[in-house]
């Protein structure tokens, strides 16, 4: 990936990461569909992954890349559990609107 340093400055990658993360946050906050909210979380995770990789490359440090694997494993597990929960919720409530999944409220 030697092209990286010459063609695209580091800052741009970081900016990209920040933009992706912010998109994830905004999506998480404003979307009503549970699946979209879930996807927003994945977006945030991958934005963080990107900055990990960039820093790892910048400082010739392998730890950042290793951490990315951890994040991916957790994300995979989370996806499995999260989708299962979403299916279970849909079966019970027949809706995926986060505003209406509020049975625990007092």
């Amino acid at each position, binding site marked *: 990936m030697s092209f990286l340093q010459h063609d695209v400055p*580091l800052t741009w990658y970081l900016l990209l990461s920040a933009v992706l993360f912010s998109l994830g946050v905004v999506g998480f906050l*404003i979307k009503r569909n549970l699946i979209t909210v879930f996807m927003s979380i994945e977006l945030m995770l991958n934005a963080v992954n990107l900055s990990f990789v960039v820093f790892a490359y910048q400082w010739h440090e392998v730890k950042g890349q290793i951490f990315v694997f951890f994040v991916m494993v957790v994300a995979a597990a989370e996806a499995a559990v999260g989708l299962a929960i979403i299916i279970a919720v849909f079966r019970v409530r027949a809706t995926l609107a*986060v*505003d209406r999944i*509020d049975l625990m*409220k007092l």
Partner: protein
Amino acid sequence: MNQSLHLWLIPLLPFAGFLLNGILGPRMPKWLVSAIGLLAPLLSFALVLNAYALTSISAASCAGCGPATAVVLPYVETCPHPWLAIGSLHVDFSFVLDQLSLVMLLVVTGVGFLIHIYSVGYMAHEEGYARYFSFLNLFLFFMTVLVLAGNFLLMFVGWEGVGLASYLLIGFYFQRNSAAAAGKKAFIVNRIGDFGFLIGIFLILTTFNTLTFNQIAVALALKTGMQGGVLTVICLCLLLGAAGKSAQLPLYVWLPDAMEGPTPVSALIHAATMVTAGVYMIARTEFLFGRSPFALTTVAIVGAATALFAATIGLAQNDIKRVLAYSTISQLGYMFLACGVAAYSAAIFHLVTHAFFKALLFLAAGSVIHAMGGEQDMRKMGGLRKKLPVTFWTMTVAVFTIAGFPPLAAFFSKDAILYAAFVQGTEGKILWFVGLLTAMLTAIYMFRLWYMTFFGESRTADAHPHESPWSMRAPLVILALLSICGGWIGIERFSAYLAPAIGLHPAVSSTPHLELILTIVAVLVALEGWLIADKYYRRKPERPAQLAAALPIGYKLLANKYYVDEIYDAVLVKPLFAVSQYVLGWIVDTGILGGITWLLAGIANLSGMILQRWQSGNLRSYAAWLMAAATVVLLFVLIAQGAIPMAGPLTHFLGSGH
């Protein structure tokens, strides 16, 4: 000291008996329970006899047996592992055998064994046979620990233990409400005394920094000038403990009620052994009492007052066991009186003879009750002389002994006490006079009991008295022989034997004339008491009722035991209940404690009500809070790194990027 006496086995054998009978008893046949229950005290008694034989060889220092086989008193046996080691305080499991504890052990295990035999006959048809024997063995275990203890703490363990055994046995017929109440009363009243004992032990600990009797005695011997002050306080605290255990004024109230227990228990615990523990304790700690004249005088006054007080009550009781209970209190008063005039050997002498004749009295009374089918009211007895010959003759011995006729045991010991009191100066004369008066009252009420029970016509038609089985008669006969011969050793030889343990306190000045005169006076007084009882209860049996009618107030006062129980109830128990219910129950518990709890619960509830608004149940609002919190944390981190203004890091990255 190359020969072991195995002192630790003396308490341990009864304890093994307690465990065996207590755990396996209900599943074992009756003969096995009796065998275990009898074997434990018998073996202990054998060990004590063995110890006595070995030590008296050395005392006689005979030529044939060199010092190699001799065991020198005091003989100490200490567990190699320390019991308590807290800072500078070291307390060991140590048993000390000296002349005093040896005499006491002989009485406890010897009389204890006889009463165990008697119990086999007396309790034969009772429910809870194994339970009874296990408790009796438990009592012997704690009593021997108390006697053998080499320090205050171990003595306290035994002290509390005999209290527990006493409680269990008083409440043996726990289905009866009165028995359960009497057990509780004994335990609670003793607790007041134990409180004093415990405070005394703590004071000793702070003063001497040790609890071992020997070390305290040595420390005191070094401080020759130490007198009164804290020692008086210690001694008065110990006296309170002794008064609780030995049923002295003002803590005697539990002993008459303790007669709710089976009669052999009354004989063993509430006459012969446990109640004398207070006397034993004072004799054991005589090195402390010797340094506090005030405490000694208090002991003497308490003893004399109790002796007289209880004897007057004994005059008007109709329950045969209660008469004996008040007689016990009165005789214990004698022992305290002797301790108070520093005549410890006379006190222990009387303790020994009292153990014989009072155990005999109780066992004979038990035999009478057994024969009468559980009847304890003397007014319903009478004319039993022919029907119960063995009981009658042994009881006669006991009655003449307690009245102080020569040459029976109590004659010697009572005389020794009265003489020791008389030679103690002016106040000693008063004590002597009180003692003499008590002796006369004792003779009156004992002969009253004798006449009412055995003479005249039978006052119950439907009773068919029968003589008791041999297991009950044999102890009666043995104790009667002991009551006759027990005093023949004489006070001089007895105090000479005890001297190494408690010192030769009363300077037994040899004034035989004075002693002879005092003896004659005492015997005459006893004779007078007998004549009065004879006149009132045999020749003119209508006279007591006339006298009671003539002096209604006096009679009622005596018959109702001076209303002491009622006074205690009104002055102590009722206010305590009132304070407990109203002040502690309503104000403190419901008001303060409950109020604080209620307040805390209210605060929690209120904050919960406020905070629950936060929990909107809306996923996105949670996410928003999370976001906001993350932002705040980030800001803090940046501020902490000095990266404010916030554009700083960004421009830094931009700059480094280029």
